[in-house]
């Protein structure tokens, strides 16, 4: 393990190039695929004014804003992030409350997830994922001396997360709920919360999910659609069946960029939640493999940087880095699993790739924070000071 870490440490660069490039490739490939996936629907819709490049232009703007924000975020030392973390978290909670207020939040397809801000919509739950990482890491570091104390270490965080979770379920945004709970639990687990507690918690949560799913017809519908999309292929299983068809059509090397049929009004949400299906159809198994591999590299880099922090006794950056790894790993896994029919359908985008301003912005800042952590590590190892 140490040898691997040493290896990366000896890289002559100022930043982790592997992390940087896999992030950039995902962002750029995402933009190309968003354009390809949206071109037909954009041209065919009066809502977009029949402009084929409607989503491309917006995605490009989001990327630009995201990269500018990332450059700014890179300048911010982790100590500052740690100081701001509780306030950012509170601001996030406030936004989640605001989005639920009728008249302020914007309703799309029965979900109130967006805050209209002039020409763009803000999706607080996307930003909340970043804030949850920053805050959970800060919380865990502060509580670390008491990690074996259930009352002190776990319950306050559990209370905060239950509150946030309820706000998210109110929207509803089940996907963000799962991701944020995973982040909080994961960081607590990394921080040393008792393993037995986790075993209990996992059981409790499974039961809770089961109840949620049984109680809510909206979620139950999605569950059954995922179990067998072909029994009700034109009803509940419609979206998934088309996603699976897209995978099947792609074969090894795809039907070619731009040649997807599924994106031609068959597959709903092709440029957002089901972008991977379009990638699978147009670029084939090879394209899917590339995307999965890039996310695996990202996750591996997050944890590698995190562990490097640990060796440098930088606990907060370590937990932030690993927290981002959990976030990107869990969200990309859920999104791709949904696309392939491994998991029940929920509204989660593919990080760094899917269309959506708030998501791209949050993802870019998260990568910048990671690069910053790595950069600070490198400075320290050269004997420099922060």
């Amino acid at each position: 393990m140490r040898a691997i870490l040493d290896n990366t440490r000896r890289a002559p660069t100022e930043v982790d190039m592997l992390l940087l490039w896999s992030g950039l490739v995902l962002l750029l490939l995402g933009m190309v695929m968003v354009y390809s996936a949206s071109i037909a629907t954009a041209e065919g819709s009066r809502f977009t004014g029949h402009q084929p490049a409607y989503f491309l232009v917006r995605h490009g703007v989001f990327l630009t804003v995201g990269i500018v924000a990332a450059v700014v975020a890179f300048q911010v030392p982790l100590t500052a992030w740690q100081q701001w973390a509780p306030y950012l978290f509170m601001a996030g909670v406030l936004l989640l409350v605001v989005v639920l207020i009728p008249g302020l939040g914007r309703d799309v397809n029965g979900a109130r997830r967006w805050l209209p801000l002039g020409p763009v919509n803000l999706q607080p739950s996307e930003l909340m994922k970043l804030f949850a990482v920053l805050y959970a890491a800060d919380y865990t570091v502060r509580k670390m001396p008491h990690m074996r104390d259930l009352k002190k270490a776990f319950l306050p965080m559990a209370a905060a997360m239950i509150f946030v979770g309820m706000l998210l379920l109110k929207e509803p945004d089940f996907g963000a709920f799962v991701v944020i709970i995973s982040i909080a639990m994961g960081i607590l687990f990394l921080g040393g919360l008792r393993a037995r507690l986790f075993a209990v918690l996992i059981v409790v949560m499974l039961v809770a999910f089961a109840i949620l799913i049984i109680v809510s017809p909206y979620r139950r519908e999605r569950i059954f659609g995922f179990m067998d999309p072909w029994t009700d292929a034109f009803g509940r299983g419609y979206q998934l069946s088309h996603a699976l068809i897209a995978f099947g059509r792609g074969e090894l090397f795809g039907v070619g960029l731009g040649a997807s049929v599924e994106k031609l009004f068959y597959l709903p949400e092709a440029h957002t939640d089901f972008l991977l299906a379009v990638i699978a159809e147009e670029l084939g198994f090879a394209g899917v493999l590339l995307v999965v591999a890039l996310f695996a590299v990202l996750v591996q880099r997050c944890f590698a940087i995190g562990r490097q922090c640990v060796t440098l006794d930088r606990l907060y950056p370590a937990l932030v880095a690993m927290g981002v790894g959990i976030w990107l790993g869990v969200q990309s896994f859920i999104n791709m699993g949904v696309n392939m029919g491994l998991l029940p359908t929920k509204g989660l985008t593919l990080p760094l790739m899917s269309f959506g301003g708030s998501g791209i912005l949050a993802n870019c800042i998260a990568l910048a924070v990671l690069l910053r952590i790595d950069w600070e590590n490198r400075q320290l190892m050269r004997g420099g000071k922060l």
Partner: protein
Amino acid sequence: MKPHKYTESPVLHLKLDAWRSRAIVVLLMAAMVSLVGRSFYLQVINNDFLQEKGESRYRRDIEVSASRGRITDRNGEVLAISTPMKSIWAIPSDVKLAPDQSRALAQLLDLEQRELNRKLATDRNFVFLQRQIPPDAADRIAALKLPGIHQEKEYRRYYPSGEMTAHIVGFTGVDAKGLEGVELAFQNQLEGKNGSRSVIKDRRGQIVEDVGSIKPPQDGRDIQLALDGKIQYLAFSTLKQTVTDNAAKAGSVVVLDAKSGEVLALANWPTYNPNNRERLSGAQLRNRAVTDTFEPGSTMKPFTAALALEKGKFRFDSLINTAPGKLTIGTATISDAHPHGVLTLAQVIQKSSNVGTAKVAGTFAPKEMWEMFDSVGFGKPPRLGFPGEVGGRLRPYAHWRPIEQATMSYGHGIAVSLVQMARAYSVFATDGELLPLSLTKLPPGPVTGTRIFSPQTVQEVRTMLEMATQPGGTAPKAQVPGYRVAGKTGTAYKIENGVYARKYVASFIGLAPASDPRLVVAVMIDEPSNGRHFGGDVAGPAFSRIMAGALRTLGVPHDAPLNSNLQVAQVVAEPEGM
């Protein structure tokens, strides 16, 4: 691994367990690997099943419409042609129109906006908004880029010569199947075989790409009619004029090529515009020359004379006493319009004496007279191929009463169509052969018919018919300058509700040039009511004009001096028998 216990130092105590992060990484990597496995299964192993599901959703076999064959006249002039048009259809659930879009669409579709909304307010997911609109209007609709509004290529049948050839050409329905006339008669040849192509369509019905092989459409065969456009025009316009001048109810003209049996012209009035068939009445639609029968009257007499000559019972100049212009058979009396006294057989025809003809017919056995009628095609359809062809009425001879046989000899108590009559006259135009009729152009070469009369008989009847158009005959107005014309007038009472009414059918059937007949022209005017009703006065001039023009069109050499028409002015037509 357990937390470290070997130190009290808070810094060292706050160590993160490496196994925990490793566990999470392993978990996440395992998840990623499962994704790769699942993806491989879907894309490489199980892709047949998924592709099949996909094809069932967006692969469609669509028809490629073949174009229908053209119909042309004998010179290649187009009488019916299929032009590409567009049909506009909609998936109503996809259609969302702003008020101004709705207005624009309705206008381009030539629909009331209310009507458009009514068509769109359906539960079905396919509805035709308008069929067969011109391509430019369709292009403008396409330019509106309205969701849920789609187009399809169709063909529309166009008839350049319109009402002039309406009855002979007929028309097709909206599904491009022939409904009338040649369009129906030659449906099998004209209709193409639609091809098919397999395509992938997007959810809105637009074709994305072709898959598999394309079966090209086989276009229908062109049909070249025997019809001569110029003669048809002449026949039609003359007919129209004649019907109007005589305030008649209707009329028909048939022009046959006496050498081949080809139908060179066939016109009816009233007619209709096949390009715009709104408000069509049955009267306009009827192809009277083929579907309507009438009692021909005196035009039947030459057949009686021919049979008399053929059987050797009379000679050209056998004398027949028609005085006192009346003849009583049983309880019925037949009469001539003017008593004539003693006439030769030729004069009986020339002056159209009913009494004379009836006396001649009295010498026949009913069977031999029936056989003659049957052999020239009366009582059975002429088998032109037209829909609704009638055979007319020729009652079985076994039940003929003498008075019936007598009236039949001059064309009453027997009903025929004008086409049957024209064809029967072809016997006198050839040297005694009845030719099969043909609607389509025949290859050059002699046509063999069925021998009915001997050339000798035909020669003599033709002379009698020529006399009828000369001074002392019933139809000097049927003369054609520069040609010898042979023909016979007919003025028949119409039967209404089983009794003869004071309404007439005036007709003239003739052939020219008499020395070597090239054409048979039959003219029938139904209910002339402008003071004149005799065939020679009403149908004769029309015959003359049509025959003159047709002979000139065909470049038929003259067989008479051009000034022969000088006699016409001096001649007063002799009234004929019934």
